């Protein structure tokens, strides 16, 4: 179960760091957090999945929804993930072709925002 989302601001990015397992039960937490950020005008997001050790299609769906929401405001979404089981879930659904992955948060927030 997703235990928490920690929020921080680094450079021009809002970082949402998640822990736990991302599934049907916990994905609404991510979805609501992203909706709130976009509503507040924060359109450049990093979702840090370093603390996530399981993701299923419901979890993947919430990340897809996050990308759609930021893009609808010309925003950007970067993912931080090095856990092979989580990366494999993205790959099996070809979603690794949709997202930009970074190995750590420092690398992600060092990415300049292209407007």
């Amino acid at each position: 179960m997703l235990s928490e989302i920690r929020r921080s601001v680094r450079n021009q990015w809002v970082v949402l760091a998640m822990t736990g397992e991302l599934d049907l039960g916990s994905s609404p937490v991510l979805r609501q957090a992203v909706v709130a950020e976009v509503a507040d005008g924060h359109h450049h997001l990093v979702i840090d999945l370093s603390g996530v050790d399981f993701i299923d299609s419901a979890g993947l769906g919430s990340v897809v929804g996050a990308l759609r929401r930021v893009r609808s405001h010309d925003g950007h979404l970067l993912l931080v993930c090095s856990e092979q089981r989580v990366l494999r879930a993205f790959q099996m659904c070809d979603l690794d072709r949709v997202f930009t992955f970074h190995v750590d948060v420092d690398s992600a927030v060092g990415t300049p925002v292209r407007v």
Partner: protein
Amino acid sequence: MSGIVELRVPAVPEYLQMVRSVVGAAASTGANLKPERVSDLRLAVSEAATNAMEAHGLSGVEDRVVIRCDLSASQIEVEVADCGPGFDPNSLPPLPDVDSPDRLRHESGLGVSLMYHLTDETIVESHGEGTAVRLIVHFGD
């Protein structure tokens, strides 16, 4: 080692983690099943149990979802059974290509294909009174 483990859980997502844990523990007792294959089975079971819970939720069914692990010397078979309205796995609409902007409009629709991808055999038996998904992983492959 062989045996049967059966869970009857309420159709609420808070039980998914427990379902995955029990199935993962059962699968880990199988002979030489690699951790990667245990992880694959946990993911497949999560997809099946998610679909079952959503089927109960959408149709207002209050029965429990039944997860039955049947462990033999050669394989583990996990059956996830619900009392929902059923569906035809062969008539699910395909998702747009990932290169299409329309793909981002779809936050669901991956579960059934993942089950087939992650297991050696996935058998879906569905009718108007429920669905049973059998997920089979052979040992030693």
